């Protein structure tokens, strides 16, 4: 029987699959880390932002909020007013000392923020909200609320461990920030190259032209067979079906529930992802909530047929997937087969061809805090229904239960993030977001 403890053990953060460190020494300084990604060149600036900018707070791997640019905070008026004390001795990459005015300017311009105003009060920052925001410190840790400015040429200026050397092009170069408040990184620089196919990335890793490459969840087994030193995150990527709110065919909740009951999630996991990940019983992964046994996820064709027979289906339901993504295409095709077994007429096609009823989506958790993670998923796929962030597990469960019973999000699988790394890497771990913690890495000297 599947138990949470077993799942926790299996999905423990930063599970090394191949290769171990054999050097035994304190960190060494120096060297350039070369990172390759399939992320299109147009988007690699977003990768860089993680190393260049910081937020007032951070969330650790257990979902607990931790101080970052803010040293401490306090709330009044039932969570409607928050005061943040800034850390001293923090400098931007241009040498300017971080001030409350900088934070105020950065946060007042953020879209989708849950506050009314942000203002400076001496060396502290006051955040005023219309409604109680019990998880405001956790919310401020989200990437979208990072504190930064841009120079005249549009280059990000943050307070993070690395600074950008120019505007992102086909690649970006980050240089260690000597005055970083947590101490200069061991690495001298980081080069990030986007638009690299997986084969090219793995080849570059094997001939020491790259130190970190991507390993998609569906390729983890292959990476193991090729003896790539691989790190896995917890199961952090949700693969789900999201019914379109405009779909006439899916207006009736029973049809959405029928599709959910028809899908054989275990086969999707075993065949396409070769058992790397877990069946998504709830919208959040079980390592985060611990209550997935309260939901059912097994394929139930009898229930699916019964629900489908209660609804008159008008036309064929169309499911879309990311164009050019062969894994998403495979997943969509298997969902179509499952649906047909339940008597539901369904077809699949790449996104953008025509109006669709169901979208197959693959998204990463925005936070390891369960309330925030659920809120962000809801905000992404059901923007009209976003409510305040739930702070306690009973409320999170109630929200999740409601989303699942109405089948407005149909979770399929949770899979890990994975990366391949050079044997020279030391202190190589993944951060709470499942991405390499580059600020901690150092490199063994070449032999």
């Amino acid at each position: 029987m599947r138990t949470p403890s077993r799942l926790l053990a299996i999905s423990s953060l930063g599970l090394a699959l191949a290769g171990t460190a054999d050097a035994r020494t304190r960190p060494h300084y120096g060297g350039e880390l070369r990172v390759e990604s399939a992320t299109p060149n147009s988007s690699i600036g977003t990768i860089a932002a993680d190393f260049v900018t910081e937020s007032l707070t951070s969330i650790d791997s257990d979902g607990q909020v931790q101080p970052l640019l803010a040293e401490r905070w306090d709330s009044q008026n039932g969570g409607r007013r928050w005061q943040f004390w800034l850390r001293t001795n923090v400098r931007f990459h241009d040498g300017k000392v971080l001030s409350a005015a900088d934070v105020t300017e950065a946060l007042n311009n953020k879209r989708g923020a849950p506050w009314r105003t942000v203002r400076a009060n001496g060396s502290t920052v006051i955040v005023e909200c219309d409604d109680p925001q019990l998880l405001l410190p956790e919310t401020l840790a989200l990437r979208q609320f990072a504190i930064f400015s841009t120079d005249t040429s549009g280059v990000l200026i943050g307070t993070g461990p690395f600074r950008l050397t120019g505007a992102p092009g086909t690649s970006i170069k980050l240089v260690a920030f000597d005055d970083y408040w947590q101490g200069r990184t061991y690495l001298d620089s980081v080069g990030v190259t986007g638009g690299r196919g997986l084969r090219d990335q793995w080849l570059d890793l094997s001939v020491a032209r790259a130190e970190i490459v991507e390993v998609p969840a569906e390729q983890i087994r292959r990476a193991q067979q090729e003896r790539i030193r691989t790190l896995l995150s917890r199961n952090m990527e949700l693969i789900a079906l999201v019914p379109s709110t405009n779909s006439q065919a899916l207006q009736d909740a029973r049809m959405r529930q029928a599709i959910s009951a028809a899908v054989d999630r275990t086969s999707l996991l075993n065949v396409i992802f070769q058992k790397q990940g877990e069946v998504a019983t709830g919208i959040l992964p079980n390592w985060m909530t611990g209550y997935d046994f309260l939901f059912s996820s097994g394929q139930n064709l009898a229930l699916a047929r019964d629900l489908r027979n209660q609804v008159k289906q008008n036309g064929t339901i169309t499911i879309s997937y990311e164009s050019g993504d062969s894994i998403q295409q495979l997943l969509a095709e298997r969902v179509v087969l499952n649906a047909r077994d339940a008597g539901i007429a369904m077809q699949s096609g790449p996104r953008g061809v025509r109006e669709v009823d169901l979208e197959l989506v693959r998204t990463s958790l925005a936070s390891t805090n369960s309330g925030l993670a659920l809120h962000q998923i809801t905000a992404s796929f059901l923007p009209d229904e976003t409510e305040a962030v739930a702070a306690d597990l009973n409320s999170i469960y109630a929200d999740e239960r409601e989303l699942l019973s109405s089948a407005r999000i149909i979770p399929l699988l949770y899979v890990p993030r994975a990366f391949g790394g050079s044997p020279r890497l030391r202190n190589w771990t993944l951060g709470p977001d499942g991405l390499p913690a580059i600020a901690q890495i150092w490199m063994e000297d070449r032999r």
Partner: protein
Amino acid sequence: MISTGYNSRQQMLKIIRIVIVLSILAGTGQLLAVTRWDAPTARLASQITAITGPGNAALSFQNLSALAPSEVAAIRVPLETQLRAGGVQLRDAANSASEIKVTLSENVREWLIVAEVRQGLDVKVVIVGVDKGSSGSVTPAGSAMVLRKSFLMSQRDPILDAAIVDSASARSLLLLSRSSVGVYAWTAGRWNLQQSFPITHGQSFPADLRGRIVTAQDHLFDVYLPGVGCSSSASAPLTMNCRDTDDPWPLGGRKAFFNSARNYFTGILVPGVGAQLPPFFSAATLPRVNYTLWLFSGLDGQVRVYDSVELRTIPNTRDWGSDMVSLKSACGVGTQLLVSTAGDDTVADSLHAYEMVDREPNEVAAQLAMDGPITALWPSADAGSATAVVHNLQTGQYDAYTITIACNQ
């Protein structure tokens, strides 16, 4: 229909009632000890009885967590007691209007006690979470010489060094962290913070920050950090002043210059030892009849020994870490070498004790396992013990220990 439960005023009154019952039971000796499960189970029982009301109910248990059977019993027994105190009569399902299915589960932060309360077709769910505690440490089995660790302090901020100051009337702990020096007094069986002195510095510290706190003759202590030196006042009230300085650090009875922007010593000792030394992470001294044997842990992973004649590399030290100290004891030749064996910051470390026989290391005690990588290892002022700081991989805390060597165990 499924919904979740919340505390109401009536529920709070029930909690108070349950607590009173528990107090009476404790007073009559029926309840011997208060466990960490008592408050959560009281909360859960209160929420369950708010749903069921008084009457018959069937209770079932399942454990999906890593909790041991003894812990399951420690949850079940008080929960049953508290449900009965709330007026719930526990019966079999055939004779009950309500079914209570309790599942013990866990997530990354908490142990969960989940109750599904079924009354006909209506199912309500209540969840109570209990923060996971930290696990205890393990002391290894002994041999002729035994490495012993004695816990000093644990905190979230990295600990760089610690020193114990004993006087006739009091015992104090000086704790060096990244941003402060804490002075603790041993009272009521624990270290209590008396004073904290912030460390001021002009330039940013290196990422792998190292530092030492050393007790002094004419004042309480000196602090050595990369590019920064601090000294306490010589008289009351106790104060501390810091200044930017490249003054050398005390090391093996001499002084050694430390690279102010990195994590290693430059290789320059004052007074010199008679050889040109490459930069090193740590050094230890072993007294000999006519000379002192120096050992250096180099940046290249090599361990070098200097015997006043030649500097040479010790073979077969690939599994040695970059931290080592010498430790005086009443065992063996009287001074042992204490060496870490860390991989990097992602794996747990251990300490090994060696004696140098014919300039070759000979392991003399069973290794001492730690709960994470050793981030600092410094000798005490009299070299009779060492301070080891471990970044506990389970808790994320930095744990400081005093390490000693005991004989004939």
